[in-house]
């Protein structure tokens, strides 16, 4: 009864999701994007930044682990 995803798997998933969200946010942006899409752009940006931040935190944890293990 263990959760099958490891920390590394979650980090990978976060990176993919963050990239998809960043591209979506850019494509739907006000400047040259698809502006007629009826979504809450500000909230999309918030979610994008949150996912990117979470991914960077996982990267930082990895870097810290590598430094500590040296």
């Amino acid at each position: 009864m263990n959760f099958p995803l490891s920390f590394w798997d979650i980090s990978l998933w976060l990176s993919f999701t963050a990239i998809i969200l960043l591209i979506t946010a850019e494509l739907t942006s006000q400047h040259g994007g698809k502006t007629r899409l009826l979504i809450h752009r500000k909230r999309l940006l918030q979610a994008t930044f949150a996912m990117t931040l979470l991914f960077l935190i996982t990267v930082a944890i990895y870097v810290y682990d590598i430094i500590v293990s040296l």
Partner: protein
Amino acid sequence: MKIKVPFKPRIIVAMLLVAIILNAVSAVLLMLVDHVVHIDLYNYGLEFRNEWAEQYWTYSRLLMSFFLVAIVAMGISVASTSIYAQSRKSGTRQATLLLLMLVTAINIVSMLFFIRIDSIVNMDLYNYGLQFSYDWAVPYWTYARLMLGSIGLAFAPILISLTLIFSSAYVFVRIDSIKLVCITMLSVGAILLALSTNFSSMIFAFVGLSLVFWGGLLLYIRPQDYVKKSLLNETVSPLLANLDKILTEVAYKGSAVYLPPKYFKDTKTSKIYMSREENARLPALEEIRRRENQFLIENPEGILLTPPGAELTKMLEEKLGKNFSDVTLEYLQQKLPEVFEKIEIAEYLQIKIENNRVSTKITNSVFKELCKATNPSKMYITIGCPVCSAIACALAECSGRPVVIEETRWTEDTRIIETSYRILEE
């Protein structure tokens, strides 16, 4: 998405009759199963003992009683449905709903009881000398499966009737399709995540995690208060046309002057003054204050109007969190384009300030169709479209001086609108 659900008593009665027939068939099949157990099985070595017989009889009698109760309850439901169709009393409807829920519960319990009887026949009776043979097993299995099948089939018409009666209270059922999709994604994702823990499956975990995330995200970013642009134009254009007609009829020759808040007792007021004669002086501050709630001004003769962009200016102030009378023109030059983009009034706004002249360039305004409609009327030239008018109100508030729209130019497709404003000396 909207679904109309009218009350259809004929369909409900037909469904209930089908359910009654299926329950009656189940009762007959139970009697046939009972015949196999009590007559045929003794020919295959079964010995009678109270240990199994009492248990079997209890379940069997309960099951038969349940079938009878369900049939009676559905009979009453048929009657109450007919009464509801005539009288439309909510009490009758609720009674029918309760009876049908009771029937559903009875059918579920009946299935469980029959599974218990089946386990007695297929497991316990072998301890009392019963020998297996296809001669008794085949008819028993046939009757048992048919019975379970008919109980199961009876669920469908009962549930359809329940749904039809339940939804008939609402003429329109509004289903938010986006919300429905999001909630489905969240639910399926949560189930998959739970299953992934149970089966240690990475695929389930990834799919579940993604479904939960995207379901939640879609629910979070879905729009709430958007209306179609065409609807906005269709609503605003008659009001502007009326204003234009009034101005044409009264034939006032002066330019529209956007007055700053100091001209009014209520500093939140935005109004324009238009004089009867061309190049007439502005009325005295006291004269306007005395007549600020009136349409006509006497000295010099003119009219006071609420500009089309007055409310839009208040909205811009609200979004900026600042009163325009408390900020400088430079602040307005910097912040107004940001707010325009944020609330999507226009794709791009550029403001240039040169002494007492301010020029703006608006790209892809939401009101650009209105420019086509009102162009080149008196109202559009001197008062401006709602966006230009809002900017003029903001300039008057910010500078504390009267403002006029000097010139408005637009490209053929009205994608770009350039407007020049002049801040007047008092």
